[in-house]
């Protein structure tokens, strides 16, 4: 097994599926010769040719429409949206069109499209590059939304996304691209969409989170352990649909929970998770479920983001409130 970074695992997943299924096509802005601005598609055009891995003109709406059209002719498009802040340019294709394909054709047609896109803060990108817009797509029935937090998960989840018959948004946190390596099997393997992972077991408190906040939460859990608290960390991995079973089982065990997201308080997935807990496990709770999030502003420009992003310390502080309630 090779030690891969998350971005290498992502490349590997695309390579695996390009090999396995001749209907898989990879395209987007600068994905060909350049191998993508982050090099996620590095070497793929060379290996599979310009017919299967290609650059498009600079228009996200065009790329999204192209993906839908290709899907209608039997292809499995894996399109790259260069940064997720450009979602707005392709919103009609994603939320307005691809998401409704099955429904509006009475289940006859489908759009097996994978939309890969980097997002996430802490890496000093210009405006509209780092924003956590996952709430906008997760709010749209008909889409699945995946956010991996490790190289191993990234490969297994991306292969599942490409094989899935529905449109899947696959969001790659930029800070995680090269932050650490992990053993990743060379062969094909899948991790089911909609299945959370318990990244750390514990008995006193559940931290439910996703994306880069998984790392921050694990740090927080360690700090809390030093104070004698046993903390469980659940990585949602798929934020739409939610793995309600895993969340509830954990809360029923620990009786206390906090939900952590990088997105603004009004914008992400945390509120959904809290609602699920309230509806299904309120009687197990010994304290209110609290959230750790970014404040409700526009994502700040590069120099301000570090004061704005939630951190392990914030998680510890909120966890203590719940533990000491």
């Amino acid at each position, binding site marked *: 097994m090779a030690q891969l970074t998350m971005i290498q695992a992502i490349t590997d997943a695309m390579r695996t599926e390009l090999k396995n299924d001749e209907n898989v096509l990879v395209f987007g802005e*600068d994905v060909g010769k350049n191998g993508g601005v982050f090099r996620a598609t590095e070497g793929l055009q060379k290996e599979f040719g310009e017919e299967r891995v290609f*650059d498009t003109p600079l228009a996200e709406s065009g790329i999204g429409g192209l993906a839908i059209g290709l899907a209608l002719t039997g292809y499995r498009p894996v399109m790259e949206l260069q940064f997720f802040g450009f979602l707005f340019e392709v919103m009609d294709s994603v939320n307005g069109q691809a998401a409704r394909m099955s429904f509006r054709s009475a289940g006859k047609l489908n759009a097996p499209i994978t939309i890969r896109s980097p997002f996430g803060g802490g890496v000093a990108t210009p*405006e509209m590059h780092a924003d956590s817009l996952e709430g906008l797509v997760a709010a749209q029935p008909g889409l699945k939304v995946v956010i991996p937090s490790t190289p191993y998960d990234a490969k297994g989840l991306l292969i599942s996304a490409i094989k899935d018959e529905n449109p899947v948004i696959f969001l790659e946190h930029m800070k995680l691209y090269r932050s650490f390596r992990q053993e990743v099997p060379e062969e094909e393997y899948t991790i089911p969409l909609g299945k959370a992972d318990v990244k750390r077991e514990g008995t006193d408190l559940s931290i439910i989170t996703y994306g880069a906040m998984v790392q921050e939460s694990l740090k927080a859990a360690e700090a809390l352990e030093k104070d004698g608290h046993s903390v469980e960390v659940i990585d949602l991995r798929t934020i739409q649909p939610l793995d309600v079973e895993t969340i509830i089982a954990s809360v029923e065990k620990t009786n206390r929970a906090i939900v952590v997201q990088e997105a603004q308080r009004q914008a992400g997935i945390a509120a959904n998770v809290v609602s699920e807990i309230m509806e299904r496990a309120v009687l197990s709770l010994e304290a209110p479920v609290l959230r750790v999030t970014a*404040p409700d*502003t526009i994502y*700040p*420009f590069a120099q301000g983001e570090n*004061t704005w992003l939630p951190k392990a310390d914030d998680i510890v502080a909120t966890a203590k409130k719940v533990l000491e309630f």
Partner: protein
Amino acid sequence: MAAEKNKQFDPTSVLHEIEEKFEMFQILNEDGKIVNKESDPNLSDEQLTELMERMVYTRILDQRSIALNRQGRLGFYAPTAGQEASQLASHYALEKDDFILPGYRDVPQLIFHGLPLHMAFLWSRGHFLGSEIPEGLNIFPPQIIIGAQYVQAAGVALGFQKRGTKSVVMTYTGDGGTSQGDFYEGLNFAGAFRSPAIFVVQNNQFAISTPREVQTAAKTLAQKGIAAGIPSILVDGMDPLAVYAVTKDARERAVKGDGPTLIETMCYRYGPHTMAGDDPTRYRTSDIDSEWEKRDPIVRFRLYLESKNLWNEEKENEVIERAKQEIKDAIKQADQAPKQKVTDFLKIMYTGDMPYNVQEQFDIYTEKESK
């Protein structure tokens, strides 16, 4: 089969006819000689010198910005070398009250329109005070979303028109930007309303790694204006006199009520796309680079001005020294900007009263940040 022979129509010929019309307009050739006397805008000696000063200043600003970026003293930076004529000669045709909606590479025009240099640096670093545009300065902060400035320009132009303001709006995008839907919508709206807009496409040959030929099957980008029914021209974007002349003309027509113009400036970006990890050797050869270096706008203009005894090494050094000093001072000034706080962000989130959620967070962060 027979029907094919008799066909009476030939849509291809229309395309070819239009494409052939777009010859590159030039006044000053690569040797600094006037090749198109009739179109010479006849700038005064002072104006010629001033335009040259701006171009040299901008080349130094580019070199220094790249160095500062490498030292970690700037943030986002998109190099401009090779585009001086396109950027500064087009801007030189504007008046103070004209409005500029720039792309991320169009910082030099903002500076010569009146944006203090230290603010451009703050913007680069991602400090919100870099976008706090001084009162009365008709600019927007550089646009990151490609194409968005084109539709907004159509709006500003319509606003001027409705108010009877005798000003124009100028907006810029790149060759890649002409693929965006917003590009077409902006042109079409301004054309439909006959609004006073000047749309500049800086064709620097590449959109990050994607060459123009992959971007579009159209032979020129200027011809895209024809579909929207607006006058369009392809100009040598490394020829300051030609860029100035066509922009000046476009401005005059816009102010007279004759509507928008599309200008494609054929130029080149010598540096990487931005300083954030782009490696141009992955997608272009040094041959292409050196071919375009021969057309360098500064070299060309220098030769021309020297032939008129308007320029010499001493003058150039003066500009270089002044630029370096001003850049140094501006960086110092930018360094003095206060550290950004979450309460700052919350304060500027809404105009007027804070909604309850913002107020609540403002109180929490005020306390947090007081520690």
